[in-house]
């Protein structure tokens, strides 16, 4: 639905060149919620603004719903008619909502329809319908200044949907909101994604956002995408930073003669109660040191850190049993003696960052 290839953006200020995007290849499938996560300055904002060409990429192409937007843009600074038409089928929500304080909530939602040339009666009908959809039917006559942050973002979402877009871009839509409001806005985005088949590309610096609603995610660092894929694919990638952040597990061996392994659950294999099967088959005691699991569509995905009695060499058979079940098993190095095979340390790549 959204494809960027070789997307590069170089800013020039006072003779110095700053590369914000360095050859970004991104592919967002139709109907999915795709999250791009990274620290501020990683280029996320430039990326999402290049998707609807609010920012002109220095090189590379952007294709949305089969239309090459970079070809429509032409050379000039001003957006031509074709690009403006294409933009009207891409909704966008902003961190600071960007509602017009001089217009009522209803009139704000009608604005994109005015631009599209929709008649007054039809605009009014659609605006009320959208207000109902985002749960603000009683706020039509209010001004944005009278609403809370969460309500403003709901209006922002309703406005973004007015042109019946197939794609919604979310530029840190929840970063200015408190945790509870963030959850309700994410839930709304999730519902819209399911109900309307809306493809959502969002950027965020909060791992929780990705965890809550994303089907796929990409990690951005210094203008590049360093990891990308569906949540299951990321989990299946050994040493994935994103998987480690999404499903963090901790804990280490309780005694010397113990083996600690991380078991990753994803795909078909994750439907069976493997841990109890393992315990019964080999008559061993298993301790669960830590787990980060989610059940999505009846399947369990996530990771679990378990401890088996005996050294690693003695546990080859039980580990083989888990691998036979289609699970991914990685031994965890014991920090005290370093017996097991080395596993890349799980570093916290995404330091907590306060909302901008």
């Amino acid at each position, binding site marked *: 639905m959204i494809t960027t290839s070789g997307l590069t953006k170089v800013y020039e200020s006072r003779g110095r060149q700053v590369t914000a995007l360095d050859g970004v290849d991104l592919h967002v499938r139709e109907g999915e919620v795709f999250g791009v996560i990274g620290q501020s300055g990683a280029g996320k904002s430039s990326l999402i603004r290049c998707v609807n060409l609010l920012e002109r990429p220095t090189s590379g192409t952007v294709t949305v719903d089969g239309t090459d937007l970079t070809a429509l843009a032409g050379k000039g600074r001003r957006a031509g008619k074709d690009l403006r038409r*294409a933009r*009207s089928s891409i909704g966008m929500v902003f961190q600071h909502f960007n509602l017009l304080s001089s217009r009522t909530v209803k009139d704000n939602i009608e604005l994109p329809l005015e631009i599209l040339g929709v008649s007054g009666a039809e605009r009014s009908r659609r605006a009320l319908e959208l207000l109902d959809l985002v749960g603000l039917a009683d706020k039509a006559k209010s001004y944005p200044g009278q609403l809370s942050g969460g309500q403003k973002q709901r209006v922002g979402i309703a406005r973004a949907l007015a*042109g019946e877009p197939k794609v919604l871009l979310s530029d840190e839509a929840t970063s200015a909101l408190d945790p509870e409001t963030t959850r309700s806005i994410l839930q709304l985005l999730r519902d819209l994604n399911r109900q309307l088949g809306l493809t959502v590309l969002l950027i965020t610096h909060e791992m929780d956002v990705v965890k809550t609603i994303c089907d796929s995610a990409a990690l951005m660092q210094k203008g590049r995408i360093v990891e990308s894929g569906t949540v299951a694919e990321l989990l299946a990638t050994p040493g994935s930073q994103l998987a480690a952040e999404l499903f963090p597990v901790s804990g280490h061996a309780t005694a010397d003669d113990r083996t600690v392994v991380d078991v990753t659950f994803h795909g078909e294999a994750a439907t069976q109660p493997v841990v109890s099967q393992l315990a019964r088959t080999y008559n061993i005691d298993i301790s669960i040191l830590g787990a980060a699991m989610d059940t999505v569509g009846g399947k369990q995905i996530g990771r679990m850190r378990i401890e088996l009695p005996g050294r690693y060499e003695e546990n080859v058979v039980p580990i083989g049993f888990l691998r036979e079940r289609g699970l991914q098993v990685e031994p965890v190095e014991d920090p005290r003696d370093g017996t097991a095979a080395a596993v890349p340390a799980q570093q916290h790549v995404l330091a907590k960052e306060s909302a901008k």
Partner: protein
Amino acid sequence: MTWEEMRPLLEQGTVDTLYMVLWATVVTIVAGLPLGVLLVLTDKGGLLQNRPLNKVVGAIVNIGRSLPFIILLIALIPFTTFVVGTFIGPTAMIVPLAIGAIPFFARLVETAIREVDHGLVEAVQSMGGGIPTIVRKVLLPQALPSLVAAVTTTVIVLIGYSAMAGAVGGEGLGSKAVTYGYQRFDTTFMLVTVVVLVAIVTIVQLLGDGAVRLLARRGRTA
């Protein structure tokens, strides 16, 4: 002079002053508003970035603003005669008044429009809005309270200018004050004229402030 003698002079003067100021304000808004918008749009990083045009318009506006009004008034006599047919009387005075106020108003418009959050412009761009849409639906409505305040300030400046115009063949309260108050040494009449001018300015300021408050209240708090 008795009150009976003063009254018709004051009435005529007030009518002439209001006539000149009103029409000069209309012309100033019609010409100054687009000029102010142009200054913002053509500036560096603006939607219609055009440095040479911006520099030229900016220079003309600055020259217009730095000329003392009394000089402008005299310098414009040939132009005024060309446009109106005469340079004497309230109708003729509309020309120099408007030309004196346009650069001033254009700068106030520029400042007001710069205050509008750029995020709103981006939001409308993301909806597929072009520059005319951005100007009509974002920049002007969002800046409206500041624009109304700018008009108020301009009207008051024009009232001051119009009194000066009285010295160069204009009509209005200024002309009456010069003729009867100054040249005939009638201090009482001079004082009464000043009181009337102060009253007019106060009323304009109150009306303007009221309108700004009404517009600003909309959308901010309940």
